[in-house]
């Protein structure tokens, strides 16, 4: 027995190295990842280095810009960018609320059930290491009050959700990820659908949009809200390549995300009071979308 093991130790070792990760992956394929002690230790070692490199690089760039531009203007610009981030989100939500208010003003007992959200600015320090990953790493974690599943937004619109986190850092799963699905509503027609990531870096797929809906190229989609999802009224993207087949329940279309994910230096995490968002289990319609 011992000699057999000794003779075949290489194949046995390699097969074990294949089987164990695959078994864990197979069991947990449809669950989120909960970081264990080793995971946290590795991220604890890597993330600060990423942060230092990124912040140093941006500091050099900022210093150069500050030198070239007027010092006070530069500082003011940084402050204005922060204010702009908040203002954009408020503007989007206000526009959405105005439309909603027009439709619902005859309902005297209307009550806004959405809890107030607080935005926390977070610096993007890195992106997912694998070219196939669709994640960002931000320098905010559970110590700052960030929770798993918290929505992450930018002035232009929805970015993604927090998928794993340590004390000081969080990984944000972008809406481009095949694991992401967001209930959305057309700003013009109010028709509901689901924006699903495909892994493509520049577009998502629109699913569960009824063929009878008057969805057109360029229509803006915003988050549909609802318990457990993104706050209502945040911009998701615009509809392109609408194809209505002569049969079937749903139309085919794509969505160009409102956010350019390669140029995100700063994002905002929606925390406290905001309903916790989570990607819908892939393959299924989001609540409230579809028939």
């Amino acid at each position, binding site marked *: 027995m011992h000699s057999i093991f000794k003779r075949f*130790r*290489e*194949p046995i*070792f*390699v097969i074990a*190295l*294949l089987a164990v*990760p*695959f078994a*864990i*992956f*197979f069991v*947990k*394929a*449809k*669950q989120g*990842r909960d970081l264990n002690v080793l*995971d946290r230790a*590795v*991220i604890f*070692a*890597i993330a600060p*280095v*990423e942060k230092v*490199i*990124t912040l140093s*690089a941006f500091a050099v760039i900022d210093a150069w810009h500050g030198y070239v531009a007027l010092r006070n203007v530069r500082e003011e610009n940084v402050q204005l960018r922060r204010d702009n981030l908040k203002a954009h989100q408020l503007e989007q939500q206000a526009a959405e609320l105005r439309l909603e208010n027009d439709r619902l003003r005859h309902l005297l007992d209307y009550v806004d059930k959405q809890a107030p959200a607080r935005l926390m600015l977070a610096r*993007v*320090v*890195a*992106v*997912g*290491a*694998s*070219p*196939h*990953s*669709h*994640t*960002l*790493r931000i320098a905010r974690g559970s110590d700052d009050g960030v929770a798993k599943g918290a929505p992450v937004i930018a002035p232009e619109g929805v970015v993604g959700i927090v*998928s*794993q986190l340590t004390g000081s850092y969080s*990984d944000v*799963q972008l809406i481009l*990820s*095949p*694991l992401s699905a967001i209930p959305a509503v057309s700003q013009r027609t109010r028709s509901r659908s689901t924006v699903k990531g*495909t*892994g*493509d*870096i*520049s577009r998502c797929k629109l699913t569960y949009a009824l063929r009878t809906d008057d969805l057109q190229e360029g229509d803006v989609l915003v988050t549909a809200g609802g318990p457990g999802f993104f706050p209502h009224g945040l911009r998701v993207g615009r509809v392109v390549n609408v194809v209505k087949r002569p049969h079937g329940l749903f139309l085919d279309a794509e969505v160009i995300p409102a956010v350019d*994910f*390669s*140029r995100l230096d700063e994002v905002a995490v929606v925390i406290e009071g905001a309903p916790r968002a989570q990607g819908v*289990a*892939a*393959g299924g319609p989001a609540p409230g979308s579809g028939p």
Partner: protein
Amino acid sequence: MTLRTALVLLVAIALTILESVIPHLLHLRAARPDLLLIVVLYLALRDDVIQGAALSAAAGYLSDLTSATPAFLYTFLAVLTFVVVRTAGAALRTEGGIQSAAVAFGASLGHSLLATLVFGFFTGAGLHFELAPMMWSAFGTAIAAPFVFAALRRVDASFQHGEEAPRGFR
């Protein structure tokens, strides 16, 4: 753990950091090299089976931690890539820069296809083959391969591992 193993691990960690930071700083969207895959290729072609497979698993684990994919997907794929490249090792030559780039290009495409298949099939996310991103990533990996190979060769040279490990499983 030998010093050489520790050094290769350090190189892998350094590459993970580079892979995470450089695309962000340069705003790269598509042509992102898979640096850890190049480490796996190097190990498959030059290391012994047990140490190479273990280090490949470690490289895959590092990819896993920064990808927010289900646990151990990339660990499994890294070891599988190690086995496939190791098995085909006799037919692959990576002495020159162009040769290593060509091998990295092919391996990256194969790895991307496999990752898409396994991920889509087992997570229920569905199969979404996006050829353009795969090609761009393979292109970036091919460009980076000679540099990563050179760095790892330098590590090995410092330990006087000049002779190549035997090909295939013993």
